[in-house]
C-alpha cells in the first residue's frame, strides 16, 4: 500500500455519558465480540496498510489494553507495525494533545520517517467496512489535495453532531460546517481523510506555527477554497457510535441479517483481539430469542432482542429485553432488565429491576461485590 495509517482515538465524548467514565470511545465494545477501533484497524490491514499509528489520550488505558499486541490485526511485522502514541513530555513540549492537528504535530516524526506517499487518517469510532485503496484511487483521479469520506444521512436523522458538507457536481467540497446549530446538509463527514504525506506535514507545521490545533476547523475549513478538497461518498453501512443513542442503535443493527452478513460473512473479515473463552452455554430455563450471544456466556433465563457480550452470566428466572449487556457482567437470579445498557464488569444482585425506555436507554452501573461459590 502506498499509504500509512493514522487512527485518531484520543477523544472523549460527553454524549457517551457514563459509558465514557472508564474508556475511550474507540474502545467501546461493539456487536458482542469487537471494539469500535477494530473496524478501522481491520479496514487498514485489509487495505494492506502496514504502518499504523494510533493516537490516544483520553482514558487510554482501556485502549492500550485492547491494543496489547498488534498481531490480532496482522500488524506485527518487520516491514511496518502498529504504534500507539500517547502524549509525552519532551524537551520542547509539555502539553497534552490540544486537538487533532496538535496530536499529529506532536507525532510528526512518524510521518517524516515514513516513505509512503500518502496518509489515511481515520477516526476510531466508526463502524464500517471500507477499502481505503478505492478512496485513494478516487483521490488521485480527482487530483485532490484532501479527500474526505462522507455519508449521505437520512433526512430524518439528527446530524447536529457531525461536520456537514456540500459539494459541486464533480464532488469538490464547496462548504463545510462543523456541527452547525441549523443543518446545512445531510451529507456528513465520516472523519476519514486521505492526504499526501508531504502535503500533510506542511499543513500541520503551518498550523502549529500559528498555534492552531484542530484538524477540521484549522485545516479543512480554513483551506476549503485554497486546496482541492473532495468528497468520497461511502454507500455501504457506516455508523458513528459516539452518543448513547447511536451506540445502542449500532449494536442493535447487528440483529439484522443484512448487517451481520455484510460485516461477518462477506470478504474481508473484521479482526479483534481473541480471548480464550469457552463456548456459550445454555442451561435449562434458557430462552433466547432474536439475540446475539458471545463466547464465555452462561444463560439460565430469558433473553430477547438483546446483545450479550463476552462472559455474560444470566441467572435463573431473569428477563432481559431489548438491552445490551457488556463484557463480564453477572446478573443474579430473577432480575428484570429492559431497554438498558449494562456496563461491563457489573454485578447485579438477585431480584433487581432496571427499566429504561426505547427513547431513553438507561445505563446501569452496579459495582457490587461478586461472590462466586464454586
Amino acid at each position: 500500500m502506498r499509504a500509512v495509517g493514522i487512527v485518531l482515538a484520543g477523544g472523549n465524548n460527553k454524549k457517551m455519558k457514563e459509558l465514557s467514565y472508564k474508556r475511550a470511545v474507540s474502545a467501546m465494545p461493539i456487536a458482542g465480540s469487537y471494539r469500535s477501533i477494530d473496524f478501522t484497524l481491520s479496514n487498514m490491514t485489509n487495505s494492506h496498510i502496514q504502518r499504523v499509528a494510533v493516537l490516544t489520550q483520553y482514558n487510554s488505558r482501556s485502549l492500550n489494553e485492547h491494543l496489547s499486541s498488534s498481531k490480532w490485526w496482522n500488524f506485527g511485522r518487520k516491514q511496518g507495525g502498529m504504534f500507539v502514541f500517547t502524549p509525552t513530555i519532551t524537551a520542547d513540549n509539555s502539553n497534552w494533545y490540544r486537538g487533532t492537528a496538535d496530536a499529529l504535530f506532536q507525532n510528526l516524526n512518524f510521518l517524516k520517517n515514513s516513505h509512503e506517499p500518502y496518509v489515511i487518517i481515520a477516526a476510531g469510532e466508526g463502524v464500517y467496512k471500507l477499502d481505503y485503496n478505492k478512496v485513494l484511487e478516487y483521490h488521485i483521479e480527482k487530483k485532490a489535495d484532501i479527500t474526505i469520506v462522507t455519508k449521505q444521512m437520512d433526512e430524518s436523522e439528527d446530524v447536529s453532531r457531525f461536520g456537514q458538507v456540500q459539494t459541486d457536481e464533480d464532488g469538490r467540497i464547496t462548504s463545510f460546517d462543523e456541527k452547525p446549530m441549523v443543518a446545512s446538509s445531510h451529507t456528513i463527514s465520516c472523519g476519514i481523510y486521505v492526504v499526501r504525506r508531504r502535503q500533510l506535514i506542511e499543513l500541520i507545521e503551518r498550523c502549529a506555527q500559528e498555534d492552531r490545533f484542530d484538524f477540521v476547523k484549522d485545516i479543512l475549513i480554513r483551506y476549503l477554497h485554497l486546496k482541492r478538497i473532495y468528497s468520497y461518498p461511502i454507500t455501504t453501512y457506516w455508523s458513528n457510535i459516539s452518543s448513547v443513542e447511536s451506540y445502542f442503535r449500532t449494536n442493535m443493527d447487528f440483529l439484522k441479517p443484512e448487517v451481520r452478513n455484510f460485516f461477518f460473512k462477506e470478504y474481508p473479515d473484521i479482526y479483534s483481539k481473541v480471548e480464550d473463552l469457552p463456548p456459550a452455554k445454555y442451561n435449562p430455563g434458557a430462552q433466547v430469542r432474536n439475540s446475539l450471544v458471545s463466547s464465555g456466556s452462561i444463560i439460565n433465563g430469558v433473553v430477547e432482542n438483546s446483545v450479550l457480550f463476552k462472559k455474560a452470566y444470566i441467572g435463573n428466572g431473569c428477563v432481559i429485553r431489548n438491552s445490551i449487556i457488556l463484557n463480564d457482567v453477572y446478573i443474579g437470579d430473577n432480575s428484570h432488565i429492559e431497554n438498558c445498557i449494562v456496563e461491563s464488569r457489573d454485578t447485579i444482585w438477585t431480584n433487581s429491576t432496571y427499566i429504561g425506555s426505547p427513547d431513553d436507554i438507561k445505563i446501569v452501573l452496579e459495582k457490587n461485590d461478586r461472590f462466586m461459590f464454586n
Partner: protein
Amino acid sequence: MIKKEMIAMLLAGGQGSRLGVLTSKVAKPAVAFGGKYRIIDFPLSNCINAGIDTVGVLTQYQPLRLNTHIGIGIPWDLDRNIGGVTILPPYEKSTNSEWYTGTANAIYQNIDYIDSFNPDYVLILSGDHIYKMDYEVMLEYHKSNNADLTIAAMPVPIEEASRFGVVITDETNRITEFEEKPAHPRSNLASMGIYIFTWSVLRDALKANKDQPSCDFGKHVIPYCHERGNRIFAYEYNGYWKDVGTLGSYWEANMELIDIIPVFNLYEEFWKIYTKSDALPPQYVSAESKIERSILGEGCEIYGEVFNSVIGANVVIEEGAVVRDSIIMQGTVVGKGSQLYKTIIAENCRIGEGVVTGVGEYAESKLDPKVYAFDLVTIGENSVIPDHVTIGKNVAISGETESADYPGGNLASGEYIVKAGGEK
C-alpha cells in the same frame, strides 16, 4: 548452551481408527471437541500451564489439520525463541528410513531433537485424552522419589480395571508389576499413558530396543526398564480424565460439558484451555429458536431448536430443524425441518432439508461392529446428506451422498455409505 529441565514429546501420529469416519481425513488429536477445541488443545494447554515451554509433536497420520492448527504455537504461547512447539514428522535418512512404527520408535527417531535441549527429564504424552493436569507436580514427585520413570495412574472402579493397563505398587507407590487388560485385576490403578522419564534412562532404553519391530512404550520400553530394575513409580491422579478414543466415550465426554456444573469445567479462570481460534462474531439466535442444555461456539446462526447438544463454531441450524443429544462440528449446515437425534456430524457438512436421523431399532453395524458399537449416527467431514432422507441408528456416512444412495429415501440402522476415497 541450551538447557531445559524437562521437555514434552506429544504422540499425535495415530489414526484413532476407533473414531471411524471422524478420523478418515484427520488425525485423532485434531478432532474437534467441546464446541471450540481440538483434542490436542488439552495436553498442549496443560504443558504451558505447567511451565513446559518445549514440546515436540510427533505426527504421521493425516497431519494437515494438525499442522495448520498448531502453526508456530501462538495460541498456547509456545512460539518461543528457544524451544516452543516443533512438529516432528517421520523423515528420510541415509539408511534405514522408515515410518514411525510404534510409540517408542517415534521417540527413538527423534533422539537428536531431544538431545538438542539437554533435558534432564522427558515427558511423554498422547494426544487423545481430555484432562487438566499439572505436570510440574508430577515432576516434583518424580524427583523426590529419585525415580527413573514415573507413570501417571488413576484409580478406576475395579470392575472396569480389566479394560486398562493396570499397575501394582508397593506401599511407597513403587511399581512392582504391570498387567495389561487383566481378566482378574489385582489393582485398580490404571495407567493413563503419561510418563516422565529421566532422559538418560530413556535414551539407553530406546537405543537398546532400537531393533525391536514396532517398538512401543507399554509393550517393550517399560517392561525393559522394569526388568533392568529401574525405579518406576506410580503418580496417582484423581481429577477428571477421559480417553476419547471410541465414539461412545467421545460422545459422552462432550455431553458431560453441558451439565449445569460440569465435572470438567471449562469456565474456570484457573488452568485455561487455549486453542487456535479466529476472531469470530457472536452467535445469533433467532426469534423462533429454542436452545436448552447445550453449548454453542462462536459465529453460529440458530433458527431451529437445539437440546442437549454441543455445537461448534459457524454452524447454521435452519428454521424448524431440531437437534437433540448430538455433536455438530464447525461449519456444518443443518437444513430446514431436519430432525437429528444422537448424531455426530464432523466439520463442514451439509445436511439437507427434512432429514431425519437416529430413528428405529438398533442394529449391529455392517461396516465395522467393533468401531460402530453405539447407537450413534456418525457423519464424516465434508459429507452431504440429500433432502428428505431417513437414517436409522448406528449408521456411518462419509462423502457426498445423493438421493440414489438411499433406496426409498431410507438408510436402515447398522448400514453405511462411505464414498470419496473409500476409507473407513
